[in-house]
Each structure stands twice: as C-alpha cells, then as structure tokens.
C-alpha cells in the first residue's frame, strides 16, 4: 500500500476550511448525536449511508448537462446503475471526482458496512479496528491523529458533563468532586470500569471522525473539480 500513498496531507490541521463546509460540519454533529444512541452496527450503517449519499450529491452536481435532471435521478435511484454504494464509489473515481485515497477509504467503509449489515450476531467495531484505521488513512499519520482526536473528544465530553453536573452537586451533597479537570482525571484514573467504558466508546468516535474527514475530502475534491470547470467552461449552473 505504501507505494500508493498520496502526498502527505495534514488533514486535521492544514485545511480547516474543507471541514467547516456546512454540510460537513452538520454531518459530524449528526454522527455524534446518533452514534451515541446506536449500536456499533447501526453506526456503521449510518456512516455508509451518509458517504454514499454524499457521493450521489457530488455525482449529481458534476454530471454533464446531457444527464442532468430526471435522467441522473433515475440512475441514482434503485434499481438505477448508480444506486449502489459501490457503483457510486467507482464512478466517482473513474470520473475524477474523488482521488485514489478517498476512493480507497470509501471501499474500506463499504466493506465494513456490508459486514455489519450481514452480521447475524452482535457486530463490534472494536473487532474491526484495523479496518477502521485503514478507512481513516487519508494521508500519512492521519489515522493516528484520528485516534488521538477521538480519545480527546471522548474525554472532553466526559469532563464537560462532569463539570456541569459538579456545580449542582455542590448544593446536593455539600461538595463538588468535579470542580476541575484535574479532579475529574483523578476520579477517572481510579475507576477502571469507567476507563473501560470510555475505551468502548472510542471506535464509534473514530468512525465518526474518520467519516467526517472522508466526507470533507469528497466535498472538497468535488468543489475543486467544479471550480476547474467554471474557469474552463461557460458557467451553466441553474
């Protein structure tokens, strides 16, 4: 795989703009909300659906005039030729809407989704951690950053909640055991049960962040393609 790696991109730090696209930012919020309530299986299905829908949106936006409107909708709708996740993914690469790395990541996600959809017993993301990390490998070191960021988010979330709750706790039990982050970390450090719970939350958080990056990349590459076109062609947007 090493020889196919794209030029290193520090996706998390260098290009904040493509993650702040409204649809991308909204997608993260949605995943954080929904994943919390979902099983691992449900979360993977939602993630697959979101990426597939985003690919459909890019294909629609970048379709040549000849295919616009009713025709493209037919193609994208079942049983149309572009109704499947895999077809959208391959066509997007073929047409140059996404690059090889986004494509590779999408393929990994698609396989993960298939496994989740067809698993009879409990599907656990932790078991598929390696593939999850492959999905997040959108540049060198990106997977590791996703992991780090996920851990931080999970912890920040707990710290935030405990700080909020701590203030009311003061009235109820006469003291606030969670008045500072240090106190919270100290409490967590002696609670292996909680650390285990936080660990369990990690894969879903990694999935959310990985998919967030992937969506950002897809949107970003689509935008760039459109920009290239408008500078070359007549602007025929409607």
């Amino acid at each position, binding site marked *: 795989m090493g020889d196919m790696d794209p030029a290193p991109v520090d996706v998390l730090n260098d290009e904040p703009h493509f993650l702040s696209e409204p649809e991308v930012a909204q997608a993260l919020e949605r995943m954080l909300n929904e994943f919390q309530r979902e099983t691992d299986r449900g979360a993977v299905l939602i993630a697959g659906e979101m990426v597939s829908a985003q690919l459909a949106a890019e294909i629609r936006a970048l379709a040549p005039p000849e295919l616009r409107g009713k025709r493209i909708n037919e193609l994208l709708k079942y049983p149309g030729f572009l109704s499947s996740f895999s077809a959208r993914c391959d066509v997007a690469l073929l047409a140059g809407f996404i690059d090889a790395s986004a494509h590779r990541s999408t393929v990994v996600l698609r396989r993960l989704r298939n496994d989740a959809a067809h698993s009879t017993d409990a599907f656990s993301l932790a078991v598929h951690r390696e593939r999850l990390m492959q999905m997040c490998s959108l540049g060198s070191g990106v997977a590791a950053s996703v992991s780090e960021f996920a851990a931080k988010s999970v912890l920040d979330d707990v710290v935030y*909640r405990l700080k909020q709750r701590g203030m009311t706790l003061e009235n109820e039990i006469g003291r606030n055991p969670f008045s500072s982050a240090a106190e919270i970390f100290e409490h967590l450090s002696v*609670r292996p*049960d909680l650390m285990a*719970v936080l660990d369990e939350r990690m894969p879903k958080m990694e999935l959310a962040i990985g998919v967030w990056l992937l969506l950002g990349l897809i949107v970003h590459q689509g935008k760039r393609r459109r920009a290239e076109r408008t500078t070359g062609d007549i602007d025929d947007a409607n």
Partner: protein
Amino acid sequence: MGTIARNGWASLEDIRDILYLTDARLDAIARDVPIRRWCECFDLRARTIFPRPKKSQAGVVGYDGVAAADVAALLIYLERLGYELEPLPLVERLMDVIRSNPYLTNAQLSVLWYERCRHKCEPLVLYLADAARPKLAETRRLRTTTGYTIEVATSADGTPIWLSASAPKYRKRRVSTPETCLQCGYVWTRGDPDSSAAHRREHKKRLSYLDPQPVVELVAAVAAGENTISVDRTSPRWKHREIYRRALAFKREFGYDFVQWQSDKGDDDPGAAGVLFCNAQNVIVGACAFRLREYQGRSWRALQWIWLAPKYRRSGILTTRWFDLRRQFGDFRVEPPVSEAMQAFLKKMGDESLMGAPLSSTLPER
C-alpha cells in the same frame, strides 16, 4: 518495676518485695496470706515460667511467675481497696505494648483505663462464699489515708462477711435511658460517648439509603455513558456497595436473618442480577435482585427482594420500571414471603400469577 515491665513477668518474690516497699499493712498481711492467694482473689494467675535456656543448656528450672500486666492489675485492685501504693510507674511502662495489642485481657484493660479511672472506679466488694456466711451483726465505716471509704460487715464474733471500698471521686452515674433516633431508627444511650459515636457512624450509613443523596461514582458513570442499572459479579465495587446497602435495609426492615447480597464488595453468584433504581438526580432510590433458581433440571428467574427508600415509595417508581423488568427477566417468580405492599402492587399490575409456583407446583419454598 522496670525489670518487671522489661521481662514481662514477676516472680512471687518480686511481688512480695513491692508490697514490702509500699504499704506497711500490706507487708504484714503478706506474711500470713501467700501471694498466690492474693492473685486468686482478683482472678489473676501465677504460672510456671522458665528463664531462656543458653544454647548449650539441655534443661531449665522453672519457677512461679505472674505476668507484668497481672501484677499491675493486682496493684490497681489493692489501691481500690484503699491501700497506699503507686501502680503508675508500672502502668506507664506497660502502656506502649497494651496500646498496640488488638486484644486485651481483663488485667490489661484495667491497666489501659487506669489513669482515666483512678480513684473514680465503682466500689469494689469482697465477700465470703455463701456456704460459709455467718449471721451479720454489725457494719462499720472507715476512711483510709488515701480517701477511700471502707464498709465492713462482720458477724457477732468479728468475722468479716463483706467489705466494700468506694473510691473518693466515684460518682454514681446518671441512669441513662436508651433513645431511638427518629431519622435512622438506631437505639443509643445519651451521655455515653461510645454509644453516641456508634450512633453517628451508623446514622451516616443508614441515611445513605434512607435519605439517599447523589452518588459521586454514579454521576461519573452516567457522564461516561456506562450502564448504571445492572449489577452482576463483574460490576465495579461501588455498585456492589450500593446494592448491598439496600439488601441490608431490606433485611432490617423485615427482620430477616440474612442479607441477600453477598457483600459490599461483590457477589460471585453467576446467576445474580442486581438492578439499581436511579433517578435523574443520580440518586439511587432503591434496588432489587434476581437470582437464577434451579430445581430438578429446570431453571427460572426469581425476584429475590426489592426495596425502595421509604420517601420514594408509592410514587410510581416501580410501575415505570416494571415493563423493563418484565421484558428483561420474563415471567420471573416473586419469591415469598411477599410483603403486603408488593402484593398490592402485583395485583394492580395484574401480575399476581408471578407469586405462584413457577413451572411446577412441587417446587420448594425459599
């Protein structure tokens, strides 16, 4: 005294020497009454002791000795009878050891409390055994140089029948009446520091389930997204602590003999399934426990006990949880004896059948 404390033992001769050096009257009596007999009067015992043999030595010669604390106790008793002597130097030398011992003999207790009780102890009474008791003719009172009041009852021929010695600073204690704490139900004695300390400790423990407050561990668990409801043998300690307290409360309220959760540290029954009832304020308002019962090759779930803090009862808590419990544990059996409240509850839910015998009517009662 130093040698006695160091060796841990005194020979009968050593004791005679002490008496000789202190109160002249004691020395006089000691000539007539053997020291061994003195010890017996106060339930102290002489035993054969041996000096530590040297390496090359094959045998040793033993002699009668009295443990250092027993010697101190003897001195204390004699002082309580009004004799003039000074047990303090020996007491002080023995304190270090006695303070660190987890268990104490009667004599060691006397030493431990000596300074606190000196000259304040209850009257000491000595009397003849019943069989030999002659008719009482006269009682006399006298005061010793140490301020003790001695009362002696004698027969017509002057034989002492009983003797009581009262300490100069002895005050009859107020008769203390037991009191029941309205909040926690603990019975304690006002004016008795030990009893009131015990109440304070117990009060705090009992209020933790009678008037439960938010539980810090629960708050953190909720924030982290942990399952805060079920308790099994793999659950963290705090859950076992909390469920055990409720099992204890259940036992106390109904006067049963056993707490139906193994301990506040865990329960290793693989069939044990505890459930905590927590509210939105992270207060644990109650709990219950299911067990897996097996008999003649059949097995079923049984609700072993359920307990809600009194102030949360009859506010619909169990009603709202009932559906989930039924879904999770199926047609479990509510094990007898079933309280009136629970019978009323089951009736209201239309689930009285859960009180019946499960699967077959030949099942044994709990």
